């Protein structure tokens, strides 16, 4: 019985291997199809509601905003997309966007300024319950509308003038405003389509878009297919299709990469980086993001600035990045390199001697009197490795005891938001490439600041940085703000700047690798 069964199984396997399919699923031609892995099912393709990176990944291929970044410039300058030009008023409180003409949606309807206004109305409408509605809070009355205090959208500072331009009136002058419009949540929408199909408007048979690709197939939890949008106004993509799988397990994805089933894998298992880095298909790029530890300044001894500085001085970031081995960059400043406002050398540099002097000054000459610090992080192998390293460094370098405390992600979020431990791990990846996106995190009124630290001068600097148009003046403001944050007051210890790593098959040319992890496949070519 067993024998027969096993022979039968082997026979099936042999037959199967002989008929191994060479063509791709859905009858796609491999020579004109890029196969990638999204890692998970996109939670939604409704750009007014999506908040995650997987959804953005797909949305950015099928849709566009008024402006986009030029990923070829070092500090990601803006380039025209659906808007051809944008002009601030003298004080940058009114912005006028001139829209591109002769642009059509995938269903052949012309793109108009009303679609932009509709998109913003939908984002701000309380009934939409969009998590990113606050992106447009800079617009006059937008917050009131989002809170339901104001019912009439025409009172919100968005209008279309008689030249067909979109005119945006802000509550105050904001120099970074156009950058917000690179974010998917601000993309135009077609209200007629959404009204007709309800929540199902994002399904392939209903969705209409403006980007270089369009959504053709979406088999939930399995795969989706994008095809070239022949109505696209710009340079049409060189490949015809993108086949995207949703494979959650990274090592499985690498197996499929090795079996030539997928052409690229974006998320690599960090514990295997040491080996993966040696492969010719390996690519990496620094990301606009910072991994840091915050300190709860309401909890003694972290209420003492000398202690905070001592801890920051005592941590050698290089050791940590060596440990992670993925090319991460040791960080002392909060704003990441590659972003406007970054300056080398800002922040507290590793210096063990100085660290010990500061701790002595703080009144802890006798180290045994120093209370045990609690260091919190969310359960994850990498965070564990970093935390253990910091624990060891603080013990060796300063002679102080640290207790590690890990919690499941959502439990951890609750802990840091209600009663953060002495030190807690956090990270931030830019929503848009402007220092305001980083520094406003640490204002005294920010929901993302769990340190309980607040500084009036810092708040004022961040506030004024938003309205200044002159680049040099702005740079000066952010330099001072960062000095307060990472040198003078030191409620945060930046650890390193993130890096993204990929495996890309050698048959793929021009795979998009950039510091905002924008993976738009328009320029990709498949080598013959």
């Amino acid at each position, binding site marked *: 019985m067993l024998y027969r069964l096993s022979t039968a199984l082997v026979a099936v396997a042999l037959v199967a291997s002989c008929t191994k399919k060479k063509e791709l699923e859905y009858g796609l031609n491999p020579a004109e199809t890029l196969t990638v892995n999204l890692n998970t099912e996109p939670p939604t393709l409704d750009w007014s509601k999506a908040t995650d990176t997987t959804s953005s990944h797909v949305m950015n291929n099928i849709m566009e905003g008024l402006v986009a970044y030029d990923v070829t410039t070092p500090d990601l300058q803006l380039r025209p997309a659906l808007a051809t030009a944008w002009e601030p008023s003298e004080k940058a409180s009114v912005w006028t966007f001139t829209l591109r003409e002769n642009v059509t949606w995938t269903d052949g309807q012309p793109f108009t300024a009303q679609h932009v206004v509709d998109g913003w109305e939908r984002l701000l409408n309380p009934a939409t319950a969009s*998590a990113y509605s606050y992106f447009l809070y800079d617009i006059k009355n937008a917050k009131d509308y989002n809170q339901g205090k104001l019912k009439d959208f025409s009172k919100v500072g968005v209008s279309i003038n008689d030249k067909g331009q979109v005119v945006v009136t802000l509550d105050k002058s904001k120099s970074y405003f156009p950058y917000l419009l690179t974010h998917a949540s601000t993309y135009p929408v077609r209200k007629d389509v959404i009204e007709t199909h309800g929540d199902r408007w994002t399904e392939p048979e209903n969705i209409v878009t403006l980007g270089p690709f369009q959504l053709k197939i979406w088999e939930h939890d399995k795969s989706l297919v994008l095809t070239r949008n022949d109505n696209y106004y710009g340079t049409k993509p060189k490949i015809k299709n993108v086949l995207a799988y949703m494979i959650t397990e990274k090592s*499985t994805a690498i197996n499929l990469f090795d079996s030539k*089933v997928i052409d690229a894998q974006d998320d690599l298992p960090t514990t295997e980086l040491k080996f993966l880095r040696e492969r010719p298909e390996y690519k990496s790029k620094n990301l606009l993001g910072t991994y840091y530890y915050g300190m709860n300044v309401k909890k003694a001894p972290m209420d003492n600035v000398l202690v905070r500085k001592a801890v920051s001085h005592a941590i050698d970031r290089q050791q940590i990045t060596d440990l992670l081995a993925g090319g991460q960059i040791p960080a002392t400043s909060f704003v990441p390199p590659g972003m406007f406002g970054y300056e080398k050398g800002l922040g507290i540099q590793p210096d063990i001697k100085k660290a010990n002097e500061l701790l002595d000054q703080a009144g802890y000459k006798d180290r045994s009197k120093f209370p045990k610090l609690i260091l919190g992080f969310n359960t994850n192998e990498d965070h564990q490795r970093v935390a253990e390293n910091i624990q060891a460094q603080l013990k060796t370098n300063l002679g102080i005891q640290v207790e590690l405390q890990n919690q499941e992600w959502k439990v951890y979020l609750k802990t840091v938001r209600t009663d953060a431990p002495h030190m807690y791990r956090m990270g931030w990846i830019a929503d848009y490439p402007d220092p305001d996106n980083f520094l406003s995190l640490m204002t005294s009124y920010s929901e993302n600041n769990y340190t309980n630290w607040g500084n009036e001068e810092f708040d004022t600097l961040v506030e004024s940085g938003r309205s200044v148009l002159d680049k040099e003046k702005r740079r000066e403001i952010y330099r001072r703000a960062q000095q307060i944050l990472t040198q003078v007051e030191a409620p945060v210890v930046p650890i390193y700047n993130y890096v993204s790593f990929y495996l890309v098959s050698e048959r793929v040319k021009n795979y998009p690798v950039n510091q905002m992890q924008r993976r738009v496949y328009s320029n990709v070519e498949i080598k013959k």
Partner: protein
Amino acid sequence: MNRTKTIYYIVLAVSILATMFMNFMAFQVPTALWALDGLLVVGGFVGYIYSQNLGVYVIKRFGEAILVLFVIATLTFLLLRVLPGGPFDQEKALPPEVKANIEAKYKLNEPLYMQYYYYVSGLAQGDLGESYKYLGRPVTEIVMETLPTSLQLGFYALVVAFIIGIPAGVFAAARHNTWMDNTTMIFAISGVSLPSFLVAAVFVLLFSFGLDLLPAAQWRGPEYYLMPVVILGIRPAAYIARLTRSSVLEVIGSDYIRTAKSKGLSERTVLFKHVLKNSLIPVLTFSGPLVAGVLSGSFIIEQIFAVPGMGKHLIQSVTNRDYPLIMAMTLLFSAMLVVANLIVDLLYSFFDPRIRLS
């Protein structure tokens, strides 16, 4: 009577085997065939219940099952609210006014008893709500799209488990204390104790990269099914083998078997006619939870082989605090467990007529 019964069994077996084979070989199985299978199985079961006079018993058990499910739903609902961290807590904290809009949309701002009321009244109408993570998707749709794959994987794994496990157990018992018995049991113990991710890794290395026979992952046809099915089936197969072996050994020692042997019946007849049927009772008991567990999808196997099944939602819905999806998963799993146990209970009297349910 006996003849019609035999014909029924043959028709049932042939039709189900044909469907299974076609499904496994990734043929488009005609709906009519599925319907016929369903009709035969359900019809047969109803007939069986009727012939054993178990109608009232089944109705009573169903009543109990609904009560159990209701209690489970209530407990899960309450436990989720106690669990720290909410569905919309994410790395980037939301301004309070934005959070308020979201909570209003999902009625999370209302008092707990109102939320419970909405939930129960939705449940009564068969509406389990929309996912909080996969925005705009009803959780029933998520289940309907992923469950069939898990059922498929689980079903084949069960077939593997039973057709390897039971014969191996009987074989080992019949050759009790010989090297054949020991070898079988070594395999069984390894099958139970080796973690499936390790077995999977070794299999992938061997069959996909070493021998280049089978694809490393995905769920696209028979050659893709083989590895996950076999690996998922190994552990239950090993359990069943051990269970069958000890049960067979126990039955072999009993008086009526001695009588059968002394009547001069051949060893084969005794083993298959008298021993086997009775010794399957413990295996049957074990099968209830096993079937429910395997059919609802294995998180690990589905992850490793990128099978688009329900297993990941079982785990990730909790990580995401996706309340409606967690509730759906819990209810579905409980329902499967309750039904599987009911079927097992009903089958007891088939294997051992001395057992009477009432």
